[in-house]
C-alpha cells in the first residue's frame, strides 16, 4: 500500500538538505511564502517517525497572531512506531522530534498520534477549539514570533 501523505514530504535526497539548524529566515516582517517552519516540522516528523500518513496544519490564522505567522500548528502522525505506547509517550516522541521548533518559534502544537490500525478505524482529523485571544499581548508569544521571523 502506498503511504498517503498530504503535505509535501520530500523524498530522501531533498530531505537531507533540511537537516541544518532552523536559522536562516529572511529578516523582515512579511510572511515567508516558503513556509519554513511547516516544512521543517514535516521533515523532522518524517525522519523521526517514518509515518504512513502525516498531516501538518498551520493553524496560526485561527489565533491572535499576525497574518503569515507560523506559531500554532496541528499535526496528525500515523506511525507503527506508536504501537504499544501510551498517549503521553507518543506525544513525547513528537515533542522530542520538534524540540528546536518548540523552543524557538512554535507556541502551540496540537498532536494526534495514531497507529495505522487506529487511523484505519477512525480516519479523522480533530478540530482545534476556538481561540480565546490569549496570544494577544503575550510576551512569550511575541518572542516566538520574532524568532520565527529572524
Amino acid at each position: 500500500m502506498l503511504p498517503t501523505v498530504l503535505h509535501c514530504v520530500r523524498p530522501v535526497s531533498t530531505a537531507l538538505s533540511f537537516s541544518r539548524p532552523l536559522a536562516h529566515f529572511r529578516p523582515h516582517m512579511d510572511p515567508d511564502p516558503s513556509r519554513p517552519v511547516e516544512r521543517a516540522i514535516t521533515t523532522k516528523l518524517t525522519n523521526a517517525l517514518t509515518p504512513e500518513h502525516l498531516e501538518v496544519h498551520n493553524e496560526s490564522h485561527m489565533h491572535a497572531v499576525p497574518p503569515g505567522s507560523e506559531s500554532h500548528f496541528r499535526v496528525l502522525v500515523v506511525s507503527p512506531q506508536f504501537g504499544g505506547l501510551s498517549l503521553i509517550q507518543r506525544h513525547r516522541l513528537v515533542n522530542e522530534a520538534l524540540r528546536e521548533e518548540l523552543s524557538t518559534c512554535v507556541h502551540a502544537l496540537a498532536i494526534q498520534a495514531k497507529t495505522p490500525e487506529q487511523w484505519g478505524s477512525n480516519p479523522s482529523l480533530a478540530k482545534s477549539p476556538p481561540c480565546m485571544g490569549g496570544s494577544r499581548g503575550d510576551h512569550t508569544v511575541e518572542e516566538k514570533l520574532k524568532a520565527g521571523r529572524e
Partner: protein
Amino acid sequence: MNKLIRSSAKCLRAGAAVYLPGSSACARLLSAAAGEQKDVGDMVKKDKVVVFIKGTPAQPMCGFSNAVVQILRMHGVDDYAAYNVLDDQDLRQGVKDFSNWPTIPQVYFNGEFVGGCDILLQMHQNGDLVKELKKLGVHSNLLDAEKESK
C-alpha cells in the same frame, strides 16, 4: 459551608488570590505568592487534580486551556487547583521544565503529569478519563450517565 471554608483555608496557605465561582466550592484559582520559591513538585501534589492554564476556569485565555476546563466541568469535577501561568512567567517556564513538556495547558492527577489538552480530550472520548478519575477517588458525572444507559 465546611467545604467552602476548607478551600478558602487551602488558598490562604497558598498565599494568593482565591477564585470561587458560583455558590459551590468550585475550582480554586491559585498562584504562588510573589517571592516564594516556585516548587512545582509541591504544587502538583497539594491537590488530586491540578491544572496549569492560561487564564482562569471562569475566564480562560486560550482555547486549549478552555477545553481542559470544559472537560473537567462536563465530568462534574469542580474541586481542583488551577494555576494561571499568565500571572507568573517563572511558573510558566517552571512547569514546562518540571514536566519536560513544552506547552500549556498541563494536567496533573495525584502529582503525576497526565498530559495536555489533546490527551485529556482523547481520554475523555475513549472513557479513560472516567476510570482515572475513579482511581483518584473523584466521582465523574459521566460515570452515572454510563450506568444509566446500561
